[in-house]
Structures are given as structure tokens and as C-alpha cells.
């Protein structure tokens, strides 16, 4: 089974090489004469006021967590789709129930306004 993934491994290696080699070459070959002016961040001639990283609004968190839940649900769909013909009605009903439980949650979050970006 693993031989199926050999091309993927090769691809990772080649991809790494393509990504890393130019950086290494640039680092090794390019002339490097740093001084403090070159290294300091440039912000319209002023000293930098604050960190470049901004705080996120807490609302992203709710969106992200709801996304994870439905992402997990999707993950369960893959093997189901692969074997649907073999597991027949039983497997179909099992998945319908699974989805129905989550749809209850979906309706709840919709009605609660968790999906609104006010």
C-alpha cells in the first residue's frame, strides 16, 4: 500500500528543494552588509509605533470553532462515501441520523444569530 504514496514523498522532497534551495542560495551567495538602518523596520520615516501583529476580535473564535465542528462532520463523510454501496440502507440511515443531530445544532446556531456578523 505504501508504494502508492512514493510519488507523494518524492513530491514533498522536490517541493522542499524548490522552496528551500533559492533561499539558501540567496543567503550564501548574496553580499550581506547589514547595518542598523537597513535592519530597522521602515514606517514612513517614523519609529515603529507598535507590534505589527494585531489582536483579533473574539468573534473570529466562534466562527472558527463552528467551522471545526462541521469540518469534523465532513471528515466522517469520506469513508462513508467510499463504502456506501456495501453498507446499504443501514449505513445510509446511520449517516442520516448523524447529520440530523448536527442539523439540529445548525438550526440552533442560525436562529441564535451565531452566523450573523453584526
Amino acid at each position, binding site marked *: 500500500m505504501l508504494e502508492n504514496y512514493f510519488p507523494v514523498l518524492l513530491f514533498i522532497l522536490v517541493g522542499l528543494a524548490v522552496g528551500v534551495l533559492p533561499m539558501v542560495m540567496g543567503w550564501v551567495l548574496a553580499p550581506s552588509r547589514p547595518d542598523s538602518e537597513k535592519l530597522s523596520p521602515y514606517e514612513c520615516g517614523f519609529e515603529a509605533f507598535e507590534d505589527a501583529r494585531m489582536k483579533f476580535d473574539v468573534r473570529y473564535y466562534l466562527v472558527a470553532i463552528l467551522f471545526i465542528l462541521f469540518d469534523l462532520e465532513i471528515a466522517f463523510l469520506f469513508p462513508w462515501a467510499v463504502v456506501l454501496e456495501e453498507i446499504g440502507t*443501514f449505513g445510509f440511515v446511520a449517516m442520516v441520523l448523524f447529520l440530523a*443531530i448536527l442539523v*439540529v*445544532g445548525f*438550526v*440552533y446556531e*442560525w*436562529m*441564535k444569530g451565531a452566523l450573523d456578523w453584526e
Partner: protein
Amino acid sequence: MTPLNLTPALPEIFVLALACVVLLVEAFSKKPEWSYTLTQLTLVGAGAITLLTAEAGKVYAFNGMFVDDLMGDVLKLVSYAAAIVAVAYSRAYLSERAMFRGEYFVLVLFAVLGMMVMISASHFLTLYLGLELLSLSLYTLVALQRDSMVASEAAMKYFVLGALASGFLLYGMSILYGMTGSLELTKVVAAVEQGSSSLLAFGLVFVVAGLAFKLGVAPFHMWVPDIYHGAPSAVTLFIGSAPKLAAFAIVMRLLVDGLHPAVGDWQQMLAIMAVLSLMIGNLAAIMQSNLKRMLAYSTIAHMGFLLLGVLADSYAGYSAAMFYVITYALMSLGAFGMVVYLSRAGFEAENLDDFKGLNARHPWLAAVMAMVMLSLAGLPPFVGFYAKLTVLQALVGAGWLWLAVIAVIFSLIGAFYYLRVVKLMYFDAPHANDLAPSGEADVRALLSLNGLGVLVLGLVPQPLLALCAYAIQTSIQ
């Protein structure tokens, strides 16, 4: 694939369906009153279904992942009752604190569902999923009072330590799986009978540690006082009662059903934990000035006592432990119920000083509280006495005399702080801050019934004792 037998799982299916309905009602109507009524009806309905489908003997379903037996049925019934009482006590408390929301009831229902799954688990996977379902609901309940810093902190602690405990349990289970090649308890027990012992002991250590965390026994008790204290009293009331039944059930399922061949190993572990719990719980409780914290330490001591019954490793011991946990749930409901009942908007009746001179103002409430306290202390004729007595009898019967002596000594020490509450209520001058119970008449009646139940069960303990003995005998091979 075997055909599906859904009948044993009917109560679970019912609770799940109705919990979804409550969630939808909350989403569409936004009237928490409806959620409240529906939740109570759901619990009553689940009780009816469990009663109707109860029968002696073990019935397995879902490929041996689910087991329905009399021990499970009794524990489930008590869990529903505890949830009904807890929700009823909490109603006024919740509405005064802007927590009277549909989510509260939905989460209580899902917690009850998690307990039912745990109680009926005969497979590592379902046991773990039930535990997670219960824990996840409880973490959220603790954090539900969002503007309270204490509650948020308690929820955070509960979550982190609970996750650690789940990790322990999972790690132990995975080692046992690696050793036995099965997740099914009936197959695990067969494999353990011929298994290697050092690996078994290693897995067992983690499983027992995980269980001890969930039960809240020393040395894994650190979370109990902080969570009991920090959570809103209505949530503490719930956490302190029904989940103990489920925790007892998984101890029975895992250690007695699944790992009985290793009884020598886990007996020693339980003995150490029981002694430590009795010691730490009873001694630390004396020093508390907050009633919720005191009751939290008393829980640790009581759970230690419960372990004594389990480690006696006999039918008498198991049924004594079952009797103990059921009566403990009853007493815990009474004690925390009183805290909730006496609290009102902007005031928590959680300090011992708040109970000073309660008798002068509300003699009947003081009497109820006194009955519960005396029962927790283990004085006759209250039910706490019989609970302790049966455990001690089983312990002596199994030849653990020294443990029984230690248990008696620490119970006597423990009686001090319960009696102090009684003394505060009856012999001290009333506190300047008058307690004005806010609850309705029906809650008051229920609370009285709870207190009287402690007395009546103490006067007539035989039926419940016999029921526990019968349930254990039909459920444990």
C-alpha cells in the same frame, strides 16, 4: 453485522430526541419556561421508559458496546431523580442571575445522557464517549455565568484537569487494548485472565488515576474544592449529585466487570486512595469557612468511603458502595439545595456565618438542614449512618479490619464540622444579614421532602438496601 436491538437503549434515544427538541424550542421560542417544563417532562419520561424496560439479567446491544442490567437501571433512575430535583431547586436561583436560559436545561439533559451512556457502557469506547459527553456539558455549565470571574476560573481549572484525567484514562485504556487486543470489557476480562502482569499493572495505574480524578478522591482531588466553590451554586448542586452515580458506575464497569482478575492490584491502589481521601477530606473540611468548600472536602471524604465498599470485593461490598452513592446523592442534593434556596439576587448563602441563627428565623429550614448535616456526619437514625455501617460491615467481612478502624476514626473527626453547622444554626445569634429564601412553595416542599427522605430512609433502610443487593447480584458475575 448483527441485527440491531434498540429496546435496551430506548431511554437514551428518548433523552437524545427530547434534548434536541428542547434545543429547537429554545432556538425558536426563546422562552426558557418551556425548556424548563420540557426538561422535567423528559426526565420523568425517561424514568418511565427505564422502569418499563427494566429486567433482571444482562442484555447486550450494539455489538456488546451497550449493556442494560439492573444496576444500571437503578443508577439511571436515581440520576434522573437527582437531575429533576437539582433543576427544580435551581429555577429561582438561575432567573435571579440571568442564567435561566434554554442552554442550561439542554446541557443538563446532555449531561444526563452522558451519565446514562457511562452507566450502560461495556466497551472502552462508549465509556470514554459518555464520560466526555458528561464532562463537556459540565465544563460549560460551570462557565455559563459568563460575567463571573470566579466561575470562569473554576471552569478553566475543571476543563484543564478534566482533560488531563481523560488523557490518563485514555492512555491506560490504550495500554490495556494493546495487551488484550479488545476494547470490549467482556473480552478484556477474558484476556486479562491470561495476560502478563507488569504491563497490566501499568495500564491499570493510569485507568485508576483517571477514575480517581473523575470521582475526586485524593490524591487526585485538587479540582474539587475550587470547582465546587467557584461554580454557580445551582451548578455545584448538579455536579455534586448525579455525576457521582455515573462515576461509581464506571468504577464498577471498569474495575469489577473488566479488570476483576487484577483485583489484587487495584485493591491496594483503592485502599491508599481511600485512606488519603478520608484524611485530607475530613481534616481540610474542618478549616473551611465557606460552606460550599466545606461540602467539597466532605465529598472527597465520602468518595473515599465509597471506595472502601468497592475494594471489599464482595457482593456485600459492592451493594454497600451502591447504597452509599445513592444516599450520598440524596444528602448532597439536600445540602447544596439549601445553599441555593437561601441565596437570593446579589447574595450567596455560602458562608458558614450566613447560617448563624437560622433556627430563630426559619425553624423548619434549619431542621431540614440539620437532618442533612447529621446524616452526612453518619449519625443514627439518619440514612448516612446505615450507608457507613454497611460499608464497614462489608469491609470487616472481607478482612480489612485496619481500614475499617481508620474509616471510623476519620468519620468521627469529620462529624465535628457537620455538627458545627448545626451548632451555628441553633445556638448562635442570628447574623445581621437576614436570609430571605426566595424560592417558591413547591421548591420548599421538595426540599422538605428531601430532608425527610434522609430521615425516612434512615428509619427504613431495608427496601433500598435489598434493591441494591439484588441489583448487584444480578448485574455482577
